[in-house]
């Protein structure tokens, strides 16, 4: 019997990676997000001050001691910005992980099982999708109360139906493909087919949806915070730091209060969107032929 050669590592993913790497902006986005994540993780090491401690003059302009000045309560803006990274990224990442998990499982079940289960799930999805999101977010936040974990729950609650629908569609169409039929003919069990064969093939759109979803979640959180219904001070989030921009005085004479968080929001959302774009392009089946 012949020697079995050692295999090349996942050439599919290697190809995707190569394609992704060609997308310069996506790579830039990835680097920026990587840095932001590091900043989030190592916030306590990086941040010069306790983000909630009142340590300086109030609304002081940037100086050697406070590179981005202090806010209206005399806290170090840079430190708050660094800690806020944690909050905003957590909103983006955890929300998406939560709702992608829920949506994938529900969608896969609906698509694969079919029949009345599918019908029921579909109606539930309909109900959820019939709420215009911002309004429900507002109501839900009121019901559950503000705060980081509640914001995440609310956003996840509203995110899953879209993923479920997406996954359901993928499962329905993949179920008709010959390779799944081949799997059935080979006698594979349903869970094996769903999780081993169908879902990995639906990963592309899910991943893209998740990436854009993370960007949207960060935006939603900042919008909510802007309305005063997001993450609550003293905890800092980019959105609630931007609240300062609601004052003309800050807008005109204290740019250090709002330009940094504003830029960071735009930069991070843009980066994530670029990454999503890159993934979508890289996974585009017309280009990969897969």
């Amino acid at each position: 019997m012949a020697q079995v050669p050692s295999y090349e590592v996942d050439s599919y993913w290697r190809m995707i990676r190569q394609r992704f790497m060609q997308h310069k902006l996506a790579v830039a986005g990835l680097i920026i997000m990587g840095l932001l994540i590091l900043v989030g993780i190592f916030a306590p090491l990086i941040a010069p001050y306790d983000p909630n401690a009142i340590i300086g003059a109030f609304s002081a302009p940037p100086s050697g001691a406070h590179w981005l000045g202090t806010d209206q309560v005399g806290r170090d803006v840079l430190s708050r910005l660094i800690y806020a990274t944690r909050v905003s990224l957590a909103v983006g990442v955890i929300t998406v992980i939560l709702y992608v998990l829920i949506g994938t499982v529900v969608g896969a079940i609906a698509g694969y099982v079919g029949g009345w289960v599918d019908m029921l799930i579909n109606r539930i999805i309909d109900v959820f999708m019939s709420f215009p999101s911002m309004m429900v977010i507002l109501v839900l936040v009121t019901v559950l109360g503000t705060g980081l974990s509640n914001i995440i729950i609310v956003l996840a609650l509203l995110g899953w139906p879209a993923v479920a629908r997406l996954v359901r569609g993928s499962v329905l169409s993949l179920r008709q493909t010959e390779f799944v039929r081949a799997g059935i003919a080979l006698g594979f069990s349903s869970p094996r087919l769903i999780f081993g064969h169908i879902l990995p093939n639906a990963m592309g759109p899910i991943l893209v949806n998740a990436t854009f979803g993370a960007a949207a979640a960060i935006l939603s959180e900042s919008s909510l915070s802007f309305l005063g219904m997001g993450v609550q001070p003293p905890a800092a989030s980019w959105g609630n730091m931007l609240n300062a921009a609601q004052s003309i005085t800050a807008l005109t004479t204290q740019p250090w209060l709002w330009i940094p968080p504003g830029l960071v929001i735009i930069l991070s959302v843009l980066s994530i969107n670029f990454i999503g774009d890159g993934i979508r392009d890289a996974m585009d089946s017309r280009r990969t032929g897969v």
Partner: protein
Amino acid sequence: MFNYIIRRLLIALPVLLGVTFLNFVLINLAPGDPVDMYVNPDVTEEDKQIRREALGLNDPFMIRYFKWLANLLQGDLGHSFSSFQPVTAMIAERIGPTLLLVGASILFGYLIAIPIGIYCAVKSGSKFDYLMSTGSLLGVSIPNFFLGLGLIYIFGVLLGILPTGGMNSMGGSGGFWDTLTHLILPTITLGTSISGGMIRYVRSSVIEVLGQEYLRTARAKGMKEFIVINKHALKNALIPLITIAGLDIPILIGGAVITETIFQWNGMGQLTIQAIFSRDFPLLMGVNMLAALSVLAANLWSDVMYAVVDPRIKYS
């Protein structure tokens, strides 16, 4: 087709019922009693009781829901807890401004997005395409409120050429131009994010169509490139756009909350916020009900439009 619409409406009914019930549960779960809000020291506990009774808050939960449903069947959405006006009247007053803003924003967004999207697709890979694709992502990445405040600051405060908020100038006779000047900034704010997403959508949709064989047929027939793109490609590419356009409206009605707040545009969004902050249950029910209706209507619209514009689809 007619049957199809009827069928869709029938399916929509249980969904709507589910929506209203879920809404009712949610709203009633919210902490805060509409009557407790009268923190005027002069309002006694007895007064609160009278108010509670008058508002029907003393009934058990399910009874209140069924009462609400029964009234709904007669087209009555109840009276607001805070202004005591019929909810229908309050909504009627607000729906126009919101539709105006949303409509103008969609128009603005699409007017920008469609030509740019097409051009990007036709010249895909070019510098222009690259620039616009990047720019469009920026459009979707800027928070609405950030853009809105920036616009107010630049055009309202620094340059002073446009009003910073409201829907008409006071005392004036209103009129088209007056409304238009007030509409500009909010429309740009809301329209920018729409056009950002739209450019990408149009672009990929057109690129998709450009790869189709019937375009090669058209070229082989000796059609000019202009006709190939603007007749043969465009109609196909626009079909998904028409359906998307329908779906945009409810998203925007909700999404306009922030823009409405910033520009004091008194539409549905503002009404919602107001209803939430005053725990005005009937109003909130009404607003959400309308919003859900708009989503369902938009879905129906997009499916029906699909059938109307795409001859391949016929509903029976």
